[in-house]
C-alpha cells in the first residue's frame, strides 16, 4: 500500500511531516474570500475586512518553555536544534491529562504501513492527553479520493485532516458546510486557554480561515520546502562531480552522468523543480501575477511552458529513470539504491532517510542543491502558506467535546524541548526509543509505531529543524533554507484561502494530466497552448475578472 505507484505526483510529493512556519513578516492578507455559507449556490466570494481578520485570529503568545535554538532562524528560515536535551531537562506544558476520557473518531492520511490499533504509542499518547482516539487512517497517496467520498456522505468522523493539496473540486465547499467554526473557542485571547496553540505562529492560522471563519487546526509549514531537490552527496563527491548551476548546464550534466548500462540515471521526474527554476507561479488560488495592470494566470505565462519544455528535454534525453517515466515503484528507493542520483521530494523524507540508511549504508549522504535559474534569470520560490494541512472538527460536536478535542491539539502542538513533544516524536523511552549517550535511538517498535505520522497532523508547533541524532542534517537543511530565502517571493493572493465560485470548480482539471503528457512527449507545447486558449474561452477570462474584482476590493 505504501508504495502504491498509482498516486498522482503531487500527493506523494508533498506528503509528509514536520512542516511548520517560520514567522513570515508582514504580508498579512487583507481578505479571506468566503464562498457560499454552506449552501449549494454559487458563492461570489466575499471579503473579510482586516479588522474582522484580526478579531478572528488567535492571539500569539510565545511559549515560555521553548528552548533557544542552536541555529537561529535567519531570513525567515526555520530555527535548528542540534544539541541533545536530556530527558530530565525537558520542559512540561501539560502536567497532567486534560481530557476527560472521551472517544474521538479521526480520519487522517497515513504514508507508510499503518500501525496496529491499540499499539503502545497510540495508547501512551491517548493516556497522556486523556482521550481515546479511534484512528481511521487512509493511504496518504490516494487520500483525496477517500476524502471526497467521506465528506459527500453524512457519516463524518469527529476530526478530519485535510491536506492543502487536496483542496480540489468540491472539498473547500465541504469544509464550509461540514466543519465547526472554532472562533468561539480560539479567537483573540480565548486561545490562551490552550498555551501551545497560542504559540503557533499567526502565519499558520491565516490559511486556516475557511469561508470567513477559523475552522482549521494548522500543521505549520516552513516558508519553503514543499519541493526540495535532493542529490546523492556521497556519490557526487566520490566521482568529483559539481552540482550544476544553471538550467542548460543541468541538462548536459545529466547526459554525462547517466549510464543506463550500469543502471544509473541522472534524475527522476523533475517537473516540480522545473517550475521553481523557471519561476512559475504556484497553484490555485495563488496562481496570478500582475503584468502591466492585468492579471495573468500561471497557465498563460511563458515560464510555465518553458518549465515544461525543459522537463521534456530531460525525459527526451533518457536521463530520467525509466521507472520514473512509467511512474511505477518508489523514487526514494531508486535514489537510496543509487539508481537515480537526483530527485525532488517533500522535506519529510530527509531526516527519515538519513536515519534509515545509517545502518545499511553508513557512507550514504544526501543533500539539497541550491535552486538555479534559467536563461540568466534567478529562480523564484513562491512562499508557501504558513500551514498546508489542517484538522477540522465535525460541526455537530457539542461544546464540551470541542473543548476536549482542542486539548488533543494543544498537547500535539507542544514545542520542541518538552516532554509532550518528545513523546509525540519519539514515543516512550525504553519502548520506542532508547537513550544511548547523547542520542535517542528508535527501537524497531518505534519505527513501526511512531514513524508513520499521525498525531502531528492534529496540530503541531511552529516549524523547527531538530535532529540531535544527525546534526549534519540540521546544518545542511537550515543552511539550504537560509541560502534560498532571498529568492522567496509572495504571490499577490498569498496567505489566504479563496473559494472560487462553483462554475469555475473544474476549469483547471485537465492541466495536470496534460503536463504529464507534454513532458513525456505524448503531446506538444502547441497542444498545451491550445488547452490554455480553450481554458480562457471556457471561463478562464471570467475567472480573471473575478479575481480582478477581488483585488480591487483589497486595495
Amino acid at each position: 500500500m505504501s508504495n502504491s505507484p498509482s498516486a498522482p505526483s503531487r500527493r506523494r510529493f508533498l506528503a509528509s511531516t514536520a512542516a511548520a512556519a517560520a514567522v513570515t513578516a508582514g504580508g498579512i492578507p487583507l481578505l479571506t474570500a468566503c464562498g457560499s455559507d454552506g449552501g449549494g449556490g454559487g458563492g461570489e466570494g466575499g471579503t473579510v475586512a482586516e479588522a474582522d481578520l484580526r478579531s478572528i485570529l488567535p492571539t500569539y503568545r510565545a511559549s515560555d518553555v521553548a528552548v533557544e535554538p542552536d541555529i537561529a532562524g535567519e531570513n525567515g528560515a526555520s530555527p535548528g536544534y542540534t544539541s541533545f536535551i536530556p530527558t530530565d531537562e525537558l520542559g512540561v506544558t501539560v502536567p497532567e491529562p486534560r481530557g476527560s476520557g472521551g472517544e474521538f473518531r479521526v480520519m487522517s492520511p497515513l504514508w507508510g504501513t499503518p500501525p496496529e490499533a491499540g499499539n503502545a504509542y497510540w495508547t501512551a499518547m491517548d493516556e497522556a492527553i486523556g482521550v481515546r482516539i479511534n484512528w481511521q487512517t487512509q493511504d496518504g497517496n490516494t487520500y483525496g479520493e477517500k476524502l471526497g467520498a467521506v465528506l459527500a456522505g453524512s457519516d463524518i468522523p469527529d476530526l478530519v485532516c485535510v491536506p492543502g493539496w487536496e483542496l480540489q473540486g468540491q472539498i473547500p465547499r465541504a469544509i464550509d458546510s461540514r466543519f465547526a467554526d472554532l472562533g468561539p473557542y480560539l479567537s483573540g485571547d480565548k486561545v490562551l486557554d490552550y498555551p501551545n496553540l497560542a504559540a503557533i505562529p499567526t502565519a499558520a492560522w491565516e490559511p486556516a480561515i475557511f469561508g470567513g471563519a477559523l475552522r482549521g487546526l494548522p500543521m505549520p509549514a516552513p516558508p519553503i520546502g514543499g519541493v526540495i531537490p535532493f542529490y546523492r552527496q556521497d556519490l557526487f563527491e566520490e566521482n568529483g562531480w559539481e552540482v550544476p548551476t544553471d538550467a542548460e548546464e543541468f541538462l548536459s550534466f545529466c547526459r554525462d552522468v547517466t549510464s543506463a548500462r550500469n543502471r544509473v540515471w541522472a534524475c527522476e521526474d523533475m517537473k516540480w523543480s522545473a517550475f521553481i527554476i523557471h519561476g512559475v507561479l504556484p497553484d490555485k488560488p495563488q496562481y496570478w501575477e500582475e503584468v502591466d495592470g492585468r492579471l495573468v494566470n500561471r497557465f498563460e505565462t511563458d515560464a510555465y511552458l518553458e518549465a515544461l519544455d525543459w522537463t521534456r528535454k530531460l525525459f527526451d534525453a533518457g536521463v530520467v529513470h525509466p521507472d520514473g517515466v512509467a511512474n511505477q515503484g518508489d523514487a526514494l528507493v531508486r535514489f537510496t539504491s543509487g539508481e537515480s542520483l537526483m530527485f525532488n521530494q517533500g522535506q519529510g523524507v530527509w531526516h527519515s532517510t538519513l536515519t534509515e540508511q545509517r545502518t545499511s549504508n553508513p557512507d550514504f549522504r544526501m543533500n539539497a542543491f541550491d535552486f538555479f535559474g534559467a536563461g540568466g534569470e534567478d529562480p523564484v520560490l513562491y512562499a508557501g502558506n504558513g500551514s498546508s494541512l489542517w484538522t477540522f472538527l465535525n460541526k455537530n460536536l457539542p461544546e464540551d467535546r470541542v473543548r476536549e478535542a482542542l486539548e488533543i491539539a494543544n498537547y500535539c502542538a507542544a514545542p520542541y524541548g518538552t516532554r509532550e513533544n518528545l513523546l509525540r516524536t519519539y514515543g516512550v523511552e525504553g519502548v520506542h526509543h532508547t537513550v544511548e549517550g547523547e542520542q535517542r535511538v528508535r527501537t524497531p517498535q518505534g519505527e513501526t509505531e511512531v514513524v508513520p505520522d499521525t498525531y502531528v497532523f492534529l496540530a503541531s508547533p511552529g516549524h523547527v529543524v531538530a535532529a540531535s541524532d544527525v546534526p549534519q542534517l540540521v546544518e545542511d537543511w537550515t543552511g539550504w533554507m537560509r541560502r534560498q530565502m532571498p529568492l522567496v517571493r509572495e504571490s499577490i493572493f498569498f496567505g489566504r484561502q479563496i473559494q472560487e465560485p462553483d462554475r469555475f470548480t473544474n476549469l483547471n482539471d485537465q492541466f495536470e494530466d496534460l503536463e504529464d503528457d507534454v513532458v513525456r512527449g505524448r503531446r506538444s507545447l502547441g497542444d498545451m497552448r491550445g488547452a490554455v486558449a480553450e481554458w480562457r474561452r471556457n471561463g478562464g477570462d471570467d475567472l480573471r475578472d473575478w479575481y480582478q474584482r477581488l483585488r480591487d476590493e483589497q486595495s
Partner: protein
Amino acid sequence: MARSTAPRPATGRPHPDGPDRSRRLTARARRGPRAPRADRRLPEGGVRLRHRLRRDRALVLMTLPCVALLLVFAYLPIAGNVIAFQYFSPYAGDGFFESMANSAWAGLEQFERMVNDSYFWDALQNTLVFSALQLIFFFPIPIALAILINSILHSKVRAWAQAVLYLPHFFSWVLVITVFQQVLGGAGMVAQTLRENGWDDGFDLMTDPGFFKFLITFQVIWKDAGWGIIVFLAALSTVNQELYESAAVDGAGRWRRVWHVTLPALRPVIALLLVLQVGNMLTVGMEQFMIQRTAVGPGAAEVLDTYVWNTGIENGQFSYAAAIGIVKGVFSLALVLAANRVAHAMGEQGVYRRT
C-alpha cells in the same frame, strides 16, 4: 468481473425441487394432514403464491440474505440516479437525501454535455477497443488451457499445474504491473540484457501508448487466464468418459475427439460466458488503468470507469458522473439482451430463458 464469477455449469440434471421433494417439505412443515393436491386447484393467484411460498419455505429462506444484499447494494442505489438530472452538490444539505432535495434540476443537460464531451468519447472508444481485444485474445485461452489440463492424467502433476495457473489471479494489480515493469520496463530485464549486448537505444514497452492496448491484454491473460479455466474444468468433469472410449473405438484420433466430444460438451458454458462477457463490454477494470495512467497518458489509458471515477469522485462532478453511469448501465443491458438472443438463436440456454 465476469471472469471470476463461476456460474453453475449447465449439467442437464433435473431441477432439484421436483414434486417428490416438495411434498416431503410441505408434509414436514404442516401440522395438520391437509392434502397437498388441493392447493394446486385453488384458482386465485394470491393463494397459490402463498401456498407455494409455504411449500418452498426452506429455499426461499436460503435466498433471502442474497436478496437483501441485492436490494441494499444494487437496487436501492438505483434511486440515487436521480442526481443525474440535477446539479447535485452533496453539501447542499445534511445527508444525501436532504442534499438531493436542495439541489437544482438540470433536466437532460448532463447528458447533452456528455454527447459533446470529447474526453467521454475517447474513454468509450478505449473501453470498446480493450474489450474487443480481450474477447479475441483472452477469451479462447482458458478454454484451451482447460482442455490441456484435462488431458493430464497424473493427478499430482495436474493439481500442481492448476495451482500454478490459479496463483496470479490472487496477485494485486500493483504487483502484477510491478512485475511487468521489472521485465518489460525501460530499466527492466529485457532492456538491460539488450544494453549489455550493445543495444543502447533502449527498450520500453511500458510507456508506449500505441502498444498499451496489447500490453493490458497480455497482463489480463497473465493474471486471469488460469482462473478462467475453473468453469470449463467443471464442465469437462461431467463429460461421460464412455463417449471418449466409443469415439476412440470408432477410430477417432485425439483432435477428432476434442472436436466432437469435448467442445460440444463445453458449448453451453462457452455461450453463457460469451453472453456475460459481451454484456460486460463497457467494464474492463479500473485499477490496472489507474496505475498505468501516467505511464501512457489518459489518451491511451482512460476507460469509462476511470473517467467516471475521475470526474465524479476526484473532481466532485457527481451529477455528470451519474449521467455517464446511467448511459453505461442502459447500454450494457441492451448488450446482454442482444447477446442472449444470439445465444438462443444458436440453440443455447444463454443467461436466462423465458419459460
